[in-house]
């Protein structure tokens, strides 16, 4: 087991959590989501996002609608479903517990 492996595992869970969190502040299309994540230095490449969004949508946590764009093809705006909100709440709880636990151990 090397550190890359662990990092991949850790980042995975966090990314979904972050996407859901970003969407609580309003509907967004992938490019917006990625901008926010890039700002927080969480994701480097955009491609990462699409499989994740599709996955979350298939799980029923997200829905989307099409919106026309002035510059290019229509955009997919993602929105949290009630299930998604519930799921996020659980995740937030877990996250807080985790941070507390990790801080406690590492400090």
């Amino acid at each position, binding site marked *: 087991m*090397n550190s890359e492996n662990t990092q991949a595992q850790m980042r995975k869970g966090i990314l979904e959590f972050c996407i859901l969190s970003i969407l609580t502040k309003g509907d967004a299309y992938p490019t917006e989501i990625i901008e926010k994540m890039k700002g927080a230095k969480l994701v480097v490449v*955009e491609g990462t996002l699409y499989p994740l969004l599709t996955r979350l949508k298939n*799980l029923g946590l997200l829905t989307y609608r099409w919106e026309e764009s002035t510059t290019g093809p229509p*955009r997919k705006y993602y929105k949290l479903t009630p299930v998604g909100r519930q799921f996020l709440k659980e995740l937030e709880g877990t996250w807080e517990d985790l941070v507390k636990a990790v801080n406690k151990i590492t400090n």
Partner: protein
Amino acid sequence: MNKTVNINLSGIIFHIEEEAYGKLYNYLSTIKGYFSESEGRDEIMADIENRIAEMLSERITDKKQVVIMTDVAHVIEVMGKPEEFVETAPEGEKTQNEQTTYRTTNKKRRVFRDSDNKILGGVCSGIANYFNIDPLWLRLALVVSFFALGTGFLLYIVLWIVIPEAKTSAEKLEMRGEDVNFSNIGKKVEEEMNSFGKRAGKWGEEVKNSASETSSKARDFIDQLLHFIGAILGGFFRVFIKIVGVFFVIIGLVFLVAMASSMFGETGIIHLDGDTYSIQDGYHMFFNNESQNLLASITLLLVVGVPLIMLIYGGIKMLLGIRKSTKYVGLSAFILWIIGIVLALILGNQVAAEFSDEATSKTVVELQQPKSGTLYLDVKDYKDEQYGQSRKKGHFRFRAKKHNLITVDDENINFGFPDLNIVRGESENFELVIFSESKGSGRKEALELAKKISYEINQKDSLVELNSFYSVVKTEKWRGQSVHVELRVPKGKSVFIGRSMKNILYDVNNESDTWDGDMVNRLWIMGDNELRCVDCDGLDKPKKKKGKKDLESRIEKEINEALEEKTDQVKKKIVTETTISVQDVDSKK
């Protein structure tokens, strides 16, 4: 000036330079290869294409209407390499119950080379991961197969090329995914179909939402049904592909092993009279030197070996479902094969040059003249009994209808059959002339080879026995050596052609135009130019029994007489050098 092509990305038309198109196309295909259909590949691809279209349209202005390489490079940089974003595709965690169906379909285990636990290329450890076994056993098997003519080594190299290395952490996780064995292939197909059904259902919902007419329900059902049928067919197709893959690998391996062992060992497929030979055992007959031998081996390896390796390669890819294509493998295999063909032409040319000239060595055999004026002709075969008793490795023969065509013994290769022609002779005596012919790179070489052909004739009083074979020393090259014998019969004298002469008579002219095969077992007298049958009552009818009996008893008598007069027995072994000088040789060409 660059050529452009038109592409349609998410409904927007782009003019794109050909080179840039190639790059974009490869990029999209690679990404596609990373997702399975059940992961929602089509949807992900549509999203990605959508985004790319958006990015590209931002980079296009009225002044710059064409998408060029740098645009594509920019897009790829922003989107990231496929490896980078599959890294974050979900894998492994087992927290949510709802995720179960999703995870099992997604957690498909794939074969990668395990570079963390490698000894050479990580092939064994990678395969061991795939089947969840200890790599030690595979390594042991591999080492053992190294000794089986190195076939294991070849297979290892092929696998090394075929199986991609687990580079990113995602790939490393995939490498250790869910167990894959034959018992749960069926389970997998079922799961795949379920997820298809689910997806179809979701898709159906979308259709329903967007078009809320009553008819959509029916359409929905038909769509679902079509998807379901597609899923079933897809599942079967996948299993079928795997079976074909196994088949390819087995066929390829069998032939490769057979070829390798035929070339380098003595356990191959070439069996002659119960012994096994290597292809190389026959090289010396055709080729002049080591470099030609080597050329022959390389040619064979390339022309036959490369396609076999590609068959195994393709089979493994089908079997393990490796979609990532290493495009240079096919191309380099093709180039190697072409090189093989070119080498074959070069070698063929060199060998053909060895056959470019021909020469004939003529030997006159003095015959003891028969008192009765009739010469009895018969054939002496290669001694079968002797061959059977003394047979050992290196001895073998090819036979057709019980006749020995090629017999190989300790010293010689004996070829059947020489040709015999019977013509009118000008002198008072019977004369026998042997023409030994050979091809060679030049006249001198051809003549030398021709002279080295040995052909024996025995005379016992009036009985002349011609060997049904001529011999070339084993260590000599084979250059199309042949022997033609001409018997010159004076006018008025006769010959009796023995029954077993059938094989060596060759286009003998006679007054009745009788076919060679029908000339045997009959007495012939020399007319003005040609032979005339003495005891044929019309050749179409079977011969009278009485006459036949007469003739047979006559031969028997003659032979007995000949045997009694042992003292007079003359045995002539004709070796060309002893009876003829080079000056006497008349050479063709």
